[in-house]
Each structure stands twice: as structure tokens, then as C-alpha cells.
């Protein structure tokens, strides 16, 4: 049996999260009047409503800040309806509003209320915008020591693990959703969005969020590096299915990408690992050298 304090908090906690004014539910209004005094200017239900309104204002405002692209795409009313449905399904659980969208990606996957024909676009946009939250205030590892690259031999690249920045996020997008978010944040008109495959990296540099469009092959290489596959075997994975001419050019392209990633801070270390671990990173499959 909960004590009176706990029971009171549970009752009010539910009342504060209701969508409609308390007075519209006579049963709840009566329960509120049992516990809340009211005064000569406000009824108990009206007093509870002051907190109820603030609950919605605060949490809708927080989601509006975190998902500006989705809001611009859907429009204010549809965005609010989506957020209300989300907050009903996943009430705030963490002490910090930063975690408010913890379940929003999964929720969006199953949400039936997106505009017809734009469901996939909306879900992709949610997934992209959600990624900003962890990257924005994630911990920064020490930068790559250039001396580590200088001492690498050809043989080392066959076994060394390239450590990517832990806050680097990789996307294979069907829509250029990054352009939607950027336009929304800049307050400009949204671009015409049609299906257009984009390989995108999202990361933080000098405390600022940045994105970089990359070649699909470059993203495949990064995916392999992220799994712990050393550089040379990762390149061999990328070469699968390429023409002879493309394969011949691959080495030079990889060098260019690698240099760009290193100078952009996306590579934070090159670590020697035991050959057995390298095989495991390849999923147990040994790639011929």
C-alpha cells in the first residue's frame, strides 16, 4: 500500500500529463478537489492545469529544439501531434531533457501518422536528427598522434586497427535529410526532397556539428574499419565486385580519403592488434593478401 504522499504524487503525476484540461474529466476534477485546495480565483482543477500546461509546453519545446527538421517538414501542428503521441507512449523517464528522445527512433518506425508517401523520409529524418544528441556532448578522445602514422609500415597496415572517432556517425540515406535540417535551422525554405541516395558522415569538430557526403565505397571502407577490420583487408573487401580498372585506382582513392579523414579528426588512433583479432573482425573470414 503506498503512503499518502506517494499516492498523492502518483495521482497528480498522471493529471499533469493529461492532454485535455482537468475540468473536462469530472472524475479527475473531483479527485483533484479532494487533495488540492484551490482559492477564490482558481478552482483546484485550474490550479492543477497550470502544471499540466507547463508539462506540455516544456516537453514539446524540448523536442522542437532537438528535431527542427522534422518540425519544418511536417508543419507545427502535425509535429506537435507526433510529439504528443510519442510522449504519451514514452513519458519522460530520465532526469535530463537531453534524454527525452531516447525512444523516438523506434517510436517513429511504428508511427502510422506520418503523411502518406513521406513515411520513410520522416523516419530517416528522425534517425538523422536523433544522432545529433549524443554527438553534441559526447566525450572527446585525444587526437591522433601523427607520429603513429609515420612509423607504419606496409605490413602494419595489414594488421593494424584504425580507430575511428567514437562520435563519428555513418549514414546510408535514401533522402538528403541533412539538407532539410540545415534549411530548417537556417530558417530558409525547405529544399524539394526526392529520393536521392546519400552516404553521409556526421561528426563534431571544434565543438561544431558537421556533415560530409562521401563516396559509397568510402562508406563501405569506413564500415569495415568500424568493425575492426585492418586497412588492407578492408580495402580488399571494398574491391570485391569492382572492375579491374577501378581496382587499380582504389589504392590512390583510399589514400586520398584516409588523409582527409585523418586531417578532419575522424581517425583517432592506429592500434596494433593480434592477428587472431583481425580475423575475428572479418567475421572469421580470412581475406587473401
Amino acid at each position, binding site marked *: 500500500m*503506498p*503512503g*499518502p*504522499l*506517494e499516492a*498523492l*504524487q*502518483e495521482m*497528480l*503525476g*498522471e493529471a*499533469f*500529463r493529461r492532454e485535455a484540461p482537468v475540468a473536462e474529466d469530472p472524475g479527475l476534477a473531483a479527485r483533484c478537489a*479532494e*487533495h*488540492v*485546495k*484551490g*482559492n477564490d*480565483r*482558481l478552482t*483546484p482543477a485550474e*490550479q*492543477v492545469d*497550470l*502544471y499540466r500546461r*507547463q*508539462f506540455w509546453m*516544456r*516537453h514539446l519545446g524540448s523536442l522542437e529544439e532537438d528535431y527542427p527538421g522534422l518540425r519544418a517538414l511536417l508543419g507545427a501542428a502535425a509535429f506537435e501531434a507526433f510529439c504528443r503521441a510519442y510522449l504519451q507512449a514514452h*513519458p*519522460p*523517464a*530520465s*532526469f*535530463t*531533457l*537531453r534524454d527525452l528522445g531516447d525512444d523516438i527512433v523506434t517510436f517513429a518506425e511504428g508511427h502510422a501518422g506520418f503523411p502518406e508517401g513521406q513515411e520513410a523520409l520522416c523516419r530517416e529524418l528522425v534517425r538523422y536528427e536523433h544522432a545529433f544528441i549524443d554527438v*553534441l*556532448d*559526447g*566525450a*572527446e578522445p585525444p587526437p591522433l598522434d601523427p607520429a603513429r602514422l609515420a612509423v607504419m609500415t606496409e605490413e602494419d597496415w595489414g594488421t593494424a586497427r584504425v580507430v575511428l572517432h567514437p562520435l563519428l556517425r555513418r549514414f546510408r540515406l535514401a533522402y538528403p535529410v541533412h539538407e532539410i535540417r540545415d534549411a530548417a535551422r537556417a530558417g530558409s525554405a525547405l529544399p524539394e526532397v526526392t529520393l536521392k541516395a546519400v552516404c553521409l558522415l556526421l561528426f*563534431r569538430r571544434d*565543438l561544431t556539428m558537421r556533415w560530409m557526403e562521401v563516396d559509397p565505397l568510402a562508406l563501405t571502407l569506413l564500415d569495415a574499419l568500424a568493425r575492426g577490420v585492418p586497412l588492407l583487408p578492408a580495402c580488399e573487401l571494398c574491391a570485391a565486385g569492382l572492375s579491374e580498372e577501378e581496382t587499380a585506382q582504389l589504392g590512390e582513392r583510399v589514400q586520398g580519403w584516409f588523409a582527409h579523414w585523418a586531417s578532419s579528426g575522424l581517425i583517432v588512433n592506429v592500434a596494433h592488434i593480434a592477428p587472431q583479432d583481425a580475423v575475428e573482425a572479418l567475421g572469421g573470414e580470412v581475406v587473401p593478401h
Partner: protein
Amino acid sequence: MSPSEKPRLGLPDLGVGVGLRRKHHEHILTNRPAVDWFEIISENYMVPGGRPMVTLDRVLGLDYRLIQHGVSLCIGGSEPLDRDYLRRLKELVRRTRTPWVSDHLCWTRAHGVDLHDLLPLPYTEEALRHVAGRARMVQDTLEVPLLLENVSSYLTYTASTMTEWEFLSGVVEEADCGLLLDVNNIYVSGYNHGFDGATYVDAIPAHRVVQIHLAGHTNYGKYIIDTHSDPVIEPVWELYRRACARLGPVSTLIEWDEDIPSFEALLAEADKARAIRDEVERARAA
């Protein structure tokens, strides 16, 4: 005199400070203005890294004094205290070297849901003992003094058996902790519930007040909401004068969180508080 009978529980008077807010970070880091101290919202810095932590370390590097003020402790909640929250809060205490930590005499969570609001408690013996026990635990865990702040409230309970100031005084005495007296919150709650702020100021245990808050609010006629969006109004300055006369010099902070003005305007508000403190002190000395 034992430490708990000394004015401010023996803790220092830091003068008049202002809140450290994102809007002013660049100005502060570039111009290094003279400020007695800054108050930070603890939760904004309980993150692994990024801009908040870099800014925090840079401000600390400039030798500014930082005081931590939290909003999520939920000292009046019915769920067990959040151990992970306390661990992270303590980590921040070590980083900022704050001489005390404050949070609100309220509840914020119920039944697994965080309402992110400062919700008033019923003023009952049950609630008093419950909160005081938890405050002792928090104080033991953090190893710095805890101050509890009176909140602005928009409702009162039929179950209450004492006044707000009796409840607040009872809690801090029983918990043997400090008090953060928010003079604007006294005014707001006094307006909303029809009590006299002066009675409140005169009733609280003076030696436990370690810090004072001043802020602006929004008056909607039938009620006032504590918005921290405007300058301090004259009746609140009057209450502050009364508090200074009763308590002596106590670290005072100007809170401004919505429609935040320029840093100069914020400092002007702090200067106003300083002038009142000084004037009251001169009168006391004479």
C-alpha cells in the same frame, strides 16, 4: 558556537553573483568581466563532453568561483533517491569545487516519470520527516553542505497541517542542512496563496540561510508564474531588504533564464542587489 549555529552555517558570503548562461559564455570568456561568482545549473554539466564541459573548464581556468544549483534531485519524491544521478552530481562537485550544492524543496518524479517541474509538497509531518531523512542521505553522499530552496507554487493541498515556512524550517532543522531563500518565490507563492512574505522572511531559521535568489516573474492577474524572464520587481526588492536586515550579508544570486538580457543589464541588476546589501549593512553597523 557550534558550526551549525554560526551565521550561514559558517559558510562564506560570496557577494552577489549571476547565473552562468549559454548566451553569455563567449562574452565572459573573451572579456573576463569582474563577477563575484557564477551559479551553474548542475544538470547542464552532467554530460560527457562537448561545449558545456569545455566552457566549464575554461571558466574554472579563469578562476571564477562556481556554485552548483540543481533541479532534478527530487528530494521530496517517493521513489528511492537516484544513485546514478548522485554519483554524477558528486563527480561535478569535485570538478567545480563548489562549497555547497543546492536544489529545491519539491518533487519532480512519480511512478517512473520525470515531470521536469518543481512540484510543491503537502506540508505534513509525514512529508517533513521523509524529506529530512533523504536530505541527510544526500548531504552524506555528496560530502558538501546541501541547501534546500523554497519553490514558487501554484497550488496548495488540503492535507497540509502547517504553513510553508513552518515546513521549510522544520525540514532544514531536522536534516541539519542549509537554506537557499528565494525571495521572489516567497513573493510569488504569497500572491498565489494569500500569505504575507514578510511573515515568511521573519520566521525562517536565519542562521541556516546560506544563499539568496532574486528573480523576475510574470503576473497573469489570477496567478503569478515564476518565469525568470524579467527584472526583479520593487516589492521583491523590499522583501530582500528585509531579509538582509534579518540575516546579514548572504551570497545573493540574480536568476534570469528567459528573455535573457545583455550581460551588462544582468550585472546592473546584481549591482542593485549589492547596493541594498551594503546600505543595510551600513545601517546595521551604525
